[in-house]
């Protein structure tokens, strides 16, 4: 491994110093003189016709500036469009567009109906109470399997099937005929919420050029286009200014406040702030898709997998959002990180009148992990085999093909991640009644970087200042994972600077080079490589300038510690400031705008799933120990070890932080969290009754990071953000299953479900 000065260390992140001081860096921390306060009136019904809508009383309230309805929206449909081969990728799908404000019909509880702007939050709330809406409830459909019935109420005119994908390889009938054992289980997961601590927030105004500026907590600065489309403005007339996010996890990937805020600012010509309450956050934005997954897995007596047949149905809720792509991730990951010669997977995402489901960390690859890893432990039990040995026998290796036909070009190191995670659990403990102890692993693979058909690209600018410090300009939103600080670390490494000598400024759709979304675990790969390319270009110019000044060959000059020096002669050195001034005096550039284009490929075949869906994957394992109280069914996670191949660690504390945070978010999903719905209406849209893990609910997370150097990112890095969470729910389910001696197949694994499993035959 090459020696790095900055890469792989844990310098305190620049944003951390601002954050511990409580500095106003978030979207809700800036106020503008004359600012109005926005408020949204939402549907209390999951399926209803708007029979009458009267805003006169609300408009008459003193201090109310605007009360807007669907009639005020120039183009009332939010399209979900990705660049690349969109038409090809969506052929055959029923892509229902979502209105910014519902016109005649509401399709989910929380759907926006009226947008209000007023002088104070209190007046806005008063106006919301004065809006009169008469709803006529309509029959709805609240179960994705029921929605597939042709006689079910239709959520949209095109029918309830939004998108199907299929995966076919080999001959699944032959695969099962070759199997000595077949295990079959159906796995179920619920709607869950991101619960970032900062709710959806934005502030907007119109600037001196007449450009609508929105300062928003978003993972996607490119939503300026959606606002422009809604308002029928040229795209260049809407600008999105990114802020540090108080968490995202995919929930700020779809449009949240942007269009409603843009509409209010544009119509009132006044600055407006819009902050969703926690309840609005629960009912108003996209959730994780519930899945029903029926799996049959066959193996020979020695544990060699012969066939997997799976049927996946996901609940998209009332609109399309990103459901087709979430489902594609499920399809590609359906068979897990294993060699399976014969595969048949049918995946369907279905409209219902439940909350809209869309992006959430792991994006469809976590539900399938619950199933494929549950199947591996079930197989091991049936075969009376060690479950780690069973996995090892079937793990993908370099040169093997996924079920999609994509051949792995590097070694996944699955066995190493699994063995190290398992060893991290330590010596087995003997339980004392009524406590039972269960231990298990779950291995996983998760894409990092977008789907190949999107032709993903990121750009970045790196430049030197006269004092020898450097500036990075790159429109990569920082959701809290340390995205900005990693770009600084990459630049510092290449230019021989300390991280404190590099500043990354601005995340802005119009002022900084476009870097794309902070989603899909893509930012280190994409912006990281763009910054790396730009920094290397600057380095090239600095080396040439330093060589001339030091009377040496450029190849003999090294940059380190803020200096340029001749290798082997540290006395022949110049400060970076003198090098920069020298370069400028000679007319050499000291800045560079570069980009990184991810490798591209056509869409996978929708009928067979064959093709290259993603450029690369991150592999890793969770090993978990649980203590189950056999009297109460209560489960406590006592040990948790995460081991992943990070490719290369950029900031060690940030990388560990991703693994630790992903693990705990997964524990909440596995054991505690569920949006309780009754005919599409949430019964727990508050933190009091939607509980997430506290410091007392989780153990310390032990993290182990391998560095193969095999990733496509800077210095061989892979992505960790989403992969860090993928195996968690399967590892918990497997550990609980092992403790109770029966398969647990439904989340959340509540005490009631554990008690039921304890009562069922092993």
């Amino acid at each position: 491994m090459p020696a790095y000065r900055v890469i792989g260390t844990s310098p305190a992140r620049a944003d951390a110093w601002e954050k511990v001081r409580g500095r106003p860096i978030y979207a809700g921390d800036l106020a503008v003189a004359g600012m109005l306060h926005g408020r949204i009136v939402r549907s209390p019904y999951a399926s209803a016709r708007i029979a009458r809508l009267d805003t006169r009383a609300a408009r008459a309230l003193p201090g109310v500036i605007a009360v807007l309805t669907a009639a005020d929206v120039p183009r009332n449909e939010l399209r979900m469009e990705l660049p690349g081969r969109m038409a090809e990728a969506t052929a055959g799908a029923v892509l229902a567009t979502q209105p910014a404000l519902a016109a005649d019909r509401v399709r989910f509880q929380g759907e926006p109906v009226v947008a209000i702007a007023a002088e104070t939050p209190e007046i806005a709330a008063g106006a919301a109470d004065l809006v009169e809406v008469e709803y006529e409830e309509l029959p709805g459909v609240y179960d994705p399997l029921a929605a597939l019935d042709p006689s079910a109420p239709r959520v949209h005119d095109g029918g309830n099937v939004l998108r199907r994908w299929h995966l076919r390889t080999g001959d699944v009938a032959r695969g099962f005929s070759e199997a000595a054992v077949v295990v079959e289980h159906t796995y179920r997961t619920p709607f869950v919420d991101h619960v970032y601590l900062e709710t959806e927030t934005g502030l907007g105004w119109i600037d001196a050029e007449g450009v609508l500026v929105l300062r928003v907590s978003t993972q996607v600065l490119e939503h300026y286009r959606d606002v422009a489309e809604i308002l029928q403005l040229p795209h260049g007339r809407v600008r999105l200014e990114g802020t540090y996010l108080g968490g995202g996890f995919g929930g700020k990937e779809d449009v949240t406040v942007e269009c409603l805020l843009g509409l209010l600012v544009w119509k009132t010509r006044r600055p407006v702030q819009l902050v969703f309450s926690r309840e609005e956050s629960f009912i108003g934005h996209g959730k994780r898709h519930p899945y029903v997954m029926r799996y049959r897995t066959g193996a020979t007596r020695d544990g060699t997998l012969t066939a997997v047949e799976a049927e996946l149905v996901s609940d998209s809720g009332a609109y399309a959002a990103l459901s087709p792509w979430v489902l594609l991730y499920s399809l590609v990951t359906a068979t897990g990180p294993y060699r399976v010669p014969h595969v048949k997977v049918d995946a369907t995402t279905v409209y219902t009148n439940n909350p809209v489901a869309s992006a959430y960390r792991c994006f469809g690859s976590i539900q399938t992990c619950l199933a494929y890893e549950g199947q591996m432990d079930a197989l091991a039990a049936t075969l009376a085999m060690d479950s780690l040995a069973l996995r090892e026998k079937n793990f993908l290796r370099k040169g093997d093909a996924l079920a999609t036909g994509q051949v792995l070009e590097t070694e996944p190191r699955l066995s190493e991640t699994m063995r190290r995670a398992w060893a991290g659990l330590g010596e087995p403990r003997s339980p004392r009644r009524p406590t039972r102890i269960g231990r298990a692993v779950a291995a996983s693979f998760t894409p990092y970087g977008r789907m190949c058909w999107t032709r993903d690209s990121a750009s970045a600018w790196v430049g030197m200042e006269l004092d020898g410090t450097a500036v990075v300009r790159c429109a990569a939103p920082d959701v809290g994972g340390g995205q900005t600080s990693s770009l600084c670390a990459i630049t510092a490494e290449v230019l021989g600077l300390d991280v404190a000598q590099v500043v990354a400024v601005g995340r802005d759709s119009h002022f900084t080079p476009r870097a794309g979304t902070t989603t899909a675990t893509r930012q280190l790969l994409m912006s990281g490589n763009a910054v790396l390319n730009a920094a290397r270009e600057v380095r090239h110019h600095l080396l040439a300038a330093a060589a001339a000044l030091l009377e040496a060959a450029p190849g003999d000059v090294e940059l380190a510690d803020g200096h340029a020096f001749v290798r082997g002669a540290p006395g022949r050195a110049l400060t970076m400031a003198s090098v920069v001034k020298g370069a400028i005096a000679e007319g050499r550039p000291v800045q560079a705008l570069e980009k990184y284009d991810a490798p591209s490929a056509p869409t996978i075949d929708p009928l067979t799933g064959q093709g290259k869906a993603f450029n690369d994957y991150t592999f890793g394992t969770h090993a978990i120990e649980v203590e189950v109280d056999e009297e109460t069914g209560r489960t406590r996670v006592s040990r948790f070890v995460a081991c992943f191949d990070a490719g290369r660690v950029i900031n060690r504390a940030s990388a560990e932080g991703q693994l630790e945070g992903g693990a705990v978010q997964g524990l909440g999903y596995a054991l505690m969290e569920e949006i309780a719905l009754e005919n599409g209406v949430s019964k727990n849209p508050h933190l009091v009754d939607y509980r997430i893990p506290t410091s007392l609910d989780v153990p310390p997370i032990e993290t182990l990071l391998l560095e193969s150097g095999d990733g496509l990112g800077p210095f061989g890095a892979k992505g960790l953000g989403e992969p860090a969470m993928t195996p968690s729910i399967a590892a918990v389910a497997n550990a609980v299953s092992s403790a109770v001696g029966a398969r647990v197949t439904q989340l959340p694994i509540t005490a009631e479900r554990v008690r039921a499993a304890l009562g069922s035959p092993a």
Partner: protein
Amino acid sequence: MKLELTLNGRPCVTEAPGHWTVLDLLRDGLNLMGTKYGCGEGVCGTCTVLADGRPIRACLVLAAHVRGRALVTVEGLERDGRLDPLQTSFAERGAAQCGFCTPGMLLAAKALLAQNPAPTVDDVREALAGNLCRCTGYTKIVDAVLAAAPGAR
């Protein structure tokens, strides 16, 4: 209504409507944006500040209730340009990711260390149980508090 209190060690005389919470007073009245809204229901702990050294939920407590009391917010942890050891420890140990829960965490931890300068891991986890974090998984937060404890060995 008129309010007199001690804010971050200094006397503070201000006006606030009767229905304002401490959170409204800090953010809208006094322009101290370090204290955050997380749920408005006293559950998440994001808005935690100290009143006479004890953690309170700024979103639940009416501003009138802190009349005459000593309030400390995240902005008051730094003294004479020197960060509190907890702030340094959080920054250096990766305990702040998105940072939104950080002000509340810091103040809950500050109250703990004032009572118990040498807490155990369990003491720290107990003291922070009312402050939700969705990013870090708590591991680095607990480590940062332990490292900043004045009685730490």
